[in-house]
């Protein structure tokens, strides 16, 4: 039977995809895995084109070429700084594709759908449309085209419920309708879903973005899987479900790394909404050790770096904002050339998407075996002479373990406070996204080097003796 042949072919393509994902253990394997998955999908496309007679080949080819060419062009030009915004944008495009397919399938009079098919169609349509608007919003926030802080609308939860109810009601109506009323009802579902995605995403922002982007990853996959059920295509279902699984895992990993429940992230808006975040009375200025000038602090920091034997660098979103990753990487290389042991400690939620810091530092040519995970690096802090914090606050705030009821209490942190000395290259002394004042700043072992991280790190770098054959200019590249 030919159906057995098609099943076997589909299974082979799925096996190739699985083999591709399975190689995501090492960076080199990931590259091969990515190519493997691309080949699998290319085969699937060729197969579908071969098995089906295409009625308007010109239009099909044009849409494919335009979409593919724009995708390739953008992908070649995007910088690693723009990756979070770009990935969010792509989640949105995935939502559009799923939504559009579901729309056409639902309005076709000549393909009567089963009940399951119809329900899946509505789900694909609604989830796809909501993924689109949520992702566009996320992308705009990540590209700093709109303010990154969460916006809570009056009656936010009520609004979400009303939109959900409207979508459900319109779907019920559409199920019984046909012709123009059907199309209008589906357009209504689309509009309400777009509004839903917007309202849903608008109150998530700042350091919670990794959760939002992971969640949209999952919903884009889910929308594809529902489309697969409508058109009874195994490959769509399998791929969609795999992506949904991946997005769900990343969402869970991000929530765990912040010690916050998923629903809290989605509904609470900013963590600081919690009452415990009431601005702690600013500790009297007199409590601070000695008011140092920035110049004094810089001089002391330079001496500390010169004398240190081991240095751990902790990057945060502020490093990406300042665009300081190349300077940081150059500083790390210089310290290594001076014979010091240098590594990077990367918190799982540092940055604005899962793994954000790793990609930025890889681009700056930092060896990936120097990028160490939290659990692996934490025992090393007490033996470390200097930690250099660049644009990170909440992920190194000891209040998370020392104080019981702050919004970050219980969140696993990088134990920078255990190192002998800590240098903080942050823009200012303001708390991180959580709003919890960073008690690390008050420790006598901490030296605050406030100001633009790029300038600060360049200053530190220039103070270190250049080895023969090492050009300072490499930073300028």
């Amino acid at each position: 039977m030919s159906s057995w042949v098609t099943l076997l072919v589909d299974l082979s393509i799925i096996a190739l995809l699985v083999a591709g994902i399975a190689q995501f253990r090492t960076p080199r394997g990931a590259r091969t895995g990515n190519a493997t998955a691309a080949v699998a999908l290319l085969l699937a496309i060729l197969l579908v084109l071969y098995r089906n007679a295409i009625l308007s080949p010109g239009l099909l080819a044009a849409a494919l070429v335009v979409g593919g060419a724009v995708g390739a062009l953008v992908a070649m030009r995007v910088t690693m700084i723009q990756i979070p915004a770009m990935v969010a944008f792509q989640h949105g495009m995935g939502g559009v594709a799923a939504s559009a397919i579901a729309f056409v399938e639902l309005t076709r009079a000549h393909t009567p759908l089963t009940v399951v098919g119809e329900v899946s169609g509505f789900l694909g349509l609604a989830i796809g449309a909501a993924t689109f608007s949520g992702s566009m919003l996320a992308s705009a926030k990540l590209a700093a085209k709109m303010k990154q802080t969460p916006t809570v609308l009056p009656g936010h939860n009520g609004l979400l419920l009303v939109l959900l109810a409207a979508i459900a009601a319109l779907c019920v109506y559409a199920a019984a309708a046909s012709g123009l009323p059907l199309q209008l009802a589906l357009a209504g579902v689309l509009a309400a879903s777009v509004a839903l995605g917007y309202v849903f995403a608008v109150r998530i922002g700042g350091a919670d973005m990794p959760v939002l982007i992971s969640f949209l990853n999952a919903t884009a996959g889910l929308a594809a899987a529902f489309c697969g059920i409508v058109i009874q295509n195994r490959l769509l279902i399998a791929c969609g479900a795999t992506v949904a699984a991946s997005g769900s895992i990343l969402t869970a990993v991000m929530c765990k790394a912040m010690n916050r429940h998923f629903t809290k992230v989605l509904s609470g808006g900013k963590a600081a909404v919690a009452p415990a975040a009431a601005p702690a009375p600013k500790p009297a200025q007199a409590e601070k050790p000695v008011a140092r000038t920035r110049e004094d602090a810089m001089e002391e920091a330079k001496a500390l770096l010169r004398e240190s034997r081991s240095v751990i660098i902790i990057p945060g979103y502020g490093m990406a904002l300042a665009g300081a990753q190349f300077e940081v990487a150059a500083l790390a290389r210089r310290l290594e050339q001076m014979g010091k042991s240098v590594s990077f400690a990367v918190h799982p939620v540092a940055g604005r998407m899962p793994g954000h810091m790793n990609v930025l530092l890889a681009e700056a040519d930092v060896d990936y075996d120097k990028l160490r995970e939290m659990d692996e690096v934490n025992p090393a802090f007490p033996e470390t002479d200097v930690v250099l914090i660049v644009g990170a606050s909440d992920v190194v705030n000891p209040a998370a373990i020392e104080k019981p009821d702050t919004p970050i209490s219980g969140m696993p942190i990088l134990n920078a406070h255990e190192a002998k000395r800590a240098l903080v290259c942050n823009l200012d002394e303001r708390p991180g996204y959580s709003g919890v004042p960073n008690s690390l700043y008050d420790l006598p072992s901490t030296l605050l080097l406030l100001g633009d991280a790029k300038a600060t790190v360049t200053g530190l770098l220039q103070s270190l003796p250049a080895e023969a054959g090492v050009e300072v200019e490499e930073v300028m590249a």
Partner: protein
Amino acid sequence: MADLALMLLVFALSFGVGYVLISRVPPLLHTPLMSMTNAISAVTILGAILLFAVAMGPGEKVVGAIALATAAFNLVGGFVITDRMTGLFRTHHEPAGNGSRPGNS
């Protein structure tokens, strides 16, 4: 009915296999992982192509072309970006990956 059961089975199996495999991906590769799964979810391109296997009105053609173009954008863009990103990761004992960066010693 058998079809429905098969589809649910495919969904559950894929979710399960995906879950096991992806749980083992190190945090180091989370960004490329998300970008590759994004490209994989552009498998909707198959659904978009299939729309063109049935006679369509002009409105349907427009919507179908939108589905095709957005899926193709994700498919090509996702795989290309992932390739660039994974090419950036290197160690000094591993000269690998030419990435897409010019002039690296």
